[in-house]
Each structure stands twice: as structure tokens, then as C-alpha cells.
């Protein structure tokens, strides 16, 4: 199931945010979109999720024009976790996750064993099974985020789009969530497209990295090919050193700034302080 943007333009109130963008989302892979604030990452995601009508160009899913697919049918194939989802007052975790089954259920909302099994699985893999009877509004930020991911999982989409899924999470939970998504991708072949702020987590988890700047894609490809000091400077206006990640061998972005303008005297090849 391939999602492709053709010469895509997206605008808000006559302000063009995304311009002439071509992107083929690699099927069955994890794609991460990075870029400075306001570069159009979220807008792109919303355009791909059919939340925003293109000002020009188009988005196709397996060659089919996205806007010609009925919302329900599309919901069975593509899921989105938006930036700040709103939980209705008083709703329980199990209830919320269960709502992810809506696109798969008929008009009379019959609940089958299938549905329950899917919900259970979603709860299990996100580690939220214990919270099933709790109210969403009582949970911590990290727990809530996992519940929302569980809901997206319950939707069983072939392509999952996530807009900054790790914001508000502490480092342990960030990694946990990303591992979860990586598992999903590996075991189910779910295509994942997410917007991340953390460049290094992006480098670790992305099969395909998309760097955006001012509404356009400036670099695209495997992280080790794409992330270097030049591209970081171009996209973020930030000076940085890009060194090998001691754990994965991939690129590790180390920012340089006024407060910390240069590397300490280090034995670079040994990677230890000299």
C-alpha cells in the first residue's frame, strides 16, 4: 500500500505552507520527517492523512486519489495520531481504545470477538492493559500517550501517521514508544510515518529520513546518508558535529552553540575524554 504525494501544495488561509512536494512513502518502512518549527511537517502529515485539502497537486494511495476514497474506507487503511488529541470527559481507557474500531464496524456498531481481541492486543502491546478501567483524564502524560497509540493500533491501519508522538514523554517512555512502533513495523509490516523533534531518535528509528525546510523536502534518504553537519545547518540553522552513534553506528547529532562552541579536547577515535 503506497502513499504518494504528487507536486503537493498545502495552504492555510491563503498562506502556502507546503509547496510543490513530491514524496513516495516507502511501504513497510519507518519514515521520519524532521525539520525546524513551522517548516510544514505537521501540515504535510495532515495532507497525507486527508485532513487538509491540497491547494494543488494530489495525494494517492495505491494510485487512487485520496480524496475520492470514502472516509470510512480510508480509515481502515490509514490512521493518524494528531498532536493534541482530546479525550472526552469521563471516558475510560478501554472505551477510548475501543473507539479505534469504529471504521471496521457497521452502522449498528456490533461488537464482535474480533474487535475485542484487537483491542486487547492493542492494550497489551502498549502496556496499558492495567489501566483499562481507569479514566483517561486521570492518567499521566506518558500513560495517556500510550493509550492514544493503543487506539491508533486498534484501528489496524496499514499506514500509521504520527504527529510528534513522543512529546511530553520522558526519555524512557520515548524510547519505549518508538520501540513499540518499530516492533509494529517489523512484525506487521505497518508503514509508519512520524514527525519527530529529536534528531537522534529520528536517526535511530528511521529507515527513511525526510528533512524539510520551508515547505519543501531538502533531503531524503537513509539517515546515514542524509544527516550530516551540512544538512543540519541547512534545515535548522544549527551548527553541529555529526559523529557515529556508539550504539548503532548511525549518525549522532551533537549540537554546537554559543555556550558550547567546540568539542572538548577528545581522543576522537577512541571516543573517550583524554
Amino acid at each position, binding site marked *: 500500500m503506497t502513499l504518494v504525494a504528487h507536486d503537493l501544495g498545502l495552504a492555510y488561509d491563503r498562506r502556502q505552507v507546503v509547496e510543490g512536494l513530491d514524496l513516495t512513502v516507502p511501504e513497510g518502512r519507518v519514515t521520519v520527517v524532521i525539520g525546524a518549527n513551522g517548516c510544514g511537517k505537521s501540515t504535510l502529515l495532515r495532507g497525507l492523512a486527508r485532513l487538509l485539502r491540497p491547494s494543488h497537486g494530489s495525494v494517492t494511495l495505491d494510485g487512487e486519489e485520496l480524496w475520492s476514497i470514502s472516509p470510512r474506507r480510508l480509515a481502515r487503511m490509514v490512521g493518524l495520531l494528531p498532536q493534541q488529541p482530546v479525550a*472526552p470527559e469521563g471516558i475510560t481507557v478501554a472505551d477510548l481504545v475501543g473507539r479505534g474500531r469504529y471504521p471496521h464496524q457497521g452502522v449498528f456498531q456490533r461488537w464482535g470477538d474480533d474487535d*475485542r481481541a484487537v483491542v486487547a492486543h492493542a492494550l497489551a502491546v502498549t*502496556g496499558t492493559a492495567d489501566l483499562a478501567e481507569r479514566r483517561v483524564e486521570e492518567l499521566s502524560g506518558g500513560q495517556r500517550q500510550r493509550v492514544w497509540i493503543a487506539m491508533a493500533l486498534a484501528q489496524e491501519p496499514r499506514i500509521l501517521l504520527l504527529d510528534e508522538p513522543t512529546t511530553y514523554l520522558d526519555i524512557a517512555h520515548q524510547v519505549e514508544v518508538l520501540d513499540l512502533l518499530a516492533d509494529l513495523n517489523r512484525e506487521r509490516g505497518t508503514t509508519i510515518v512520524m514527525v519527530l523533534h529529536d534528531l537522534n531518535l529520528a536517526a535511530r528509528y528511521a529507515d527513511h529520513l525526510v528533512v524539510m525546510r520551508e515547505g519543501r523536502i531538502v533531503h531524503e534518504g537513509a539517515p546515514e546518508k542524509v544527516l550530516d553537519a551540512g544538512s543540519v545547518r541547512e534545515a535548522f540553522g544549527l551548527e553541529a558535529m555529526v559523529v557515529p552513534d556508539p550504539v548503532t553506528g548511525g549518525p549522532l547529532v551533537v549540537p554546537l552553540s554559543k555556550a558550547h562552541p567546540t568539542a572538548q579536547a577528545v581522543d576522537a577515535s577512541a571516543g573517550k575524554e583524554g
Partner: protein
Amino acid sequence: MSLTTPPRSSGPSGSSGSSGPTEAEIAGRVARAARAGVRRRVLVTLALVAAVLVVAVLSLTTGEVALTVPELVGALSPDGDVFARYVLLDLRLPRLAMAAEVGALLALAGALFQSVLRNPLASPDIIGISQGATVGAVTALLVLGWGGLAVAGCAALGGLVVAAANLLLGWRNGFSSYRFVLTGIGLAFVATSVVGYLLTRSDVREAQSALVWMAGSVSGADPAGVRHLGLVLVVLLPVGALLARGLGLLEMGDDTAATLGVRPTLLRVAALVTGVVAAAAAVSVAGPVSFVALTAPPIARRLLGDGRVGLVPTVLVGVVVATAADFVAGHVVPGQVSVPLGVVTGLLGGPYLVWLLATTSPDRRSR
């Protein structure tokens, strides 16, 4: 696509240390929780139905002509006591039925509006439908000198015209709740001004009779009116039920709802139109009965306790409130005098809301 995978212990899950429950166990838990939710719903619904029946029996048996329950039942059969049948079928039952229908329609409208607009001040009472209907009715009464069904017709027309103007004026490159509500309030004020003009320029006694209509009452219920309202109710309730599920999703935000396959704008407009028709129908026949539309949804939510949009319970709450209020209205003042229904709901609404607020847990977010 495989739906169940072998049990696995997920990573650093929230609180459990050892390998968590199997998925089958989780599924069981979810099912049990769902069943508990359904049970609660059914219980609440049954309790409400019981309440409706109690109020109904009270209303039908009490009054200047007191009927005992056996007499009541006897009057239902075609060869029962003639006088009892008259009291029951021509006087009390139409009034009870109309109060019930009005309560149901207003509660439906309130539920739909609150779900769509998400502002506790934005009930059908204030965004122009009641005021437009009042203009229609008062014009019919004071300017045209009409009465009865014609007044109801004018009221319905007035309410619908204002609502249509509201929808049209509020539409610009798509639908915005904010625009809709503000436009509605503006139109409501204009309508109120017109009513004020009519009231000050007419004979005082006529103005007084117009005021009686404006207070909201079902004491003049007739079988034709009951039938008409019943028809509207029968059509709109299923529509509301169909919309309810989508509306529940809409409460999670437009983006999430759209991702799950809902069409937010279409749903909103459909829900509002349904609510408008329901409210206009009720107000045209009974006048602007205050507060039912505003209070029925929160009460129902409280009773259900799980954050869902419960349409049937909400409608039942509306029926209970309206019929109980009408019972009070008809019997609180000794003799044949009937206090207008709108007056009673207005007076009861206050203490109810106070109770609601005093028992609400503090807001998490500062709203």
C-alpha cells in the same frame, strides 16, 4: 490479517513487574468492563422509565377529580366510566403526552447542541430558535389576532427562519461553531427587540396573554398537537441515534474523528439541523420552556458516568423533568389554576444547577 498473537510480555509496562496478563485475559477484562457499562446503562434507562411511569400515574390520578389506579385502568377500556374516560383521555392524557414529547424533543435538541458546540452556554434556548418562535407567536397573537394552531405554525416558522438565517450567515468557507453561536445570539437579540416592540405597542391585556404564551405551557394540549409532535419525535429520534455515535467521536477532536472515518462538518450540520427542528417543534407548540434543553444532557451524563453520549437516557431525563415539572405546575396552586410549565422549569433549574456545581469535582484544566 492475524488478529490474535501469542501471549507476550510487553516491555516496561506501567505498573506490573512480572510478565503481564495474557491477551485473552485482557480481552476478558475489556469485555467485562464493557458489560458492566452496558449494565449500568440499562439500569439507568430502566430507572428512568420507572420514573416516567411514576410521574405519569401521579399526573393521571391526581387532580380535582381524583382517580384511583384501578379506576384509571378501568377508564382505559372502551366501556369504562364515561366521566373518568373524559377526564383521562381528553384532559390529562393529552397534557401528559405533550409534556413528555416536549421534554423529549428539548432534551434531544440540547444533547445534539451540546455535543456539537461544546460550550455550556450554547443551548437552543439562547441562539435564537426560542426567540424567533416567540416573534412568530407574538406576531400571530398581537398583530394578526390569531389563535390555536395558527400561532403554533407561526411560531414554528419564526423559529425555523431564524435558525436557517443562523446557519446561512454562520457559513463561510465551511462551518464554525463560534460563528454559528455568535450569529445566533445576535439574531436572538434582534428577535427579542421585535418582541419588546410588539409588547410595548399593544394593549396591556393582549400583551399579557402573549406573555402567557411566552412563559411556556402545555396546559392547552390537544390531541392534534400531541399527534404532530409525536410524529416529529418518531422521525427525529432515530436520526439522533444514528448521529450519536459519530458525535461521540467528534468529541475527541475533529482530526481524530476524521481519521476514524467521520465527516466532521457534515455531521455537525446534520446534528444542528436535527436539533433545530426538534427545538422549533417543541417551542412552537408549548412556547419556550426554559432549561430542559440545557440541563437534561448533564444530568444524563452524570447518571451514566462514563463520558458517552447517551441519547436514550438523555431523552428520558427530559421526559421526566418535563412531566414532573408539569405535574408540579398543574397542582402546586390549589384550584384550577395552572402555573406555566416554563415558570416551573425555570425555578427548578436553578437549584438543580446549584446542586450539580456543588457536587462537581474540581476542574483539572482551568476552564
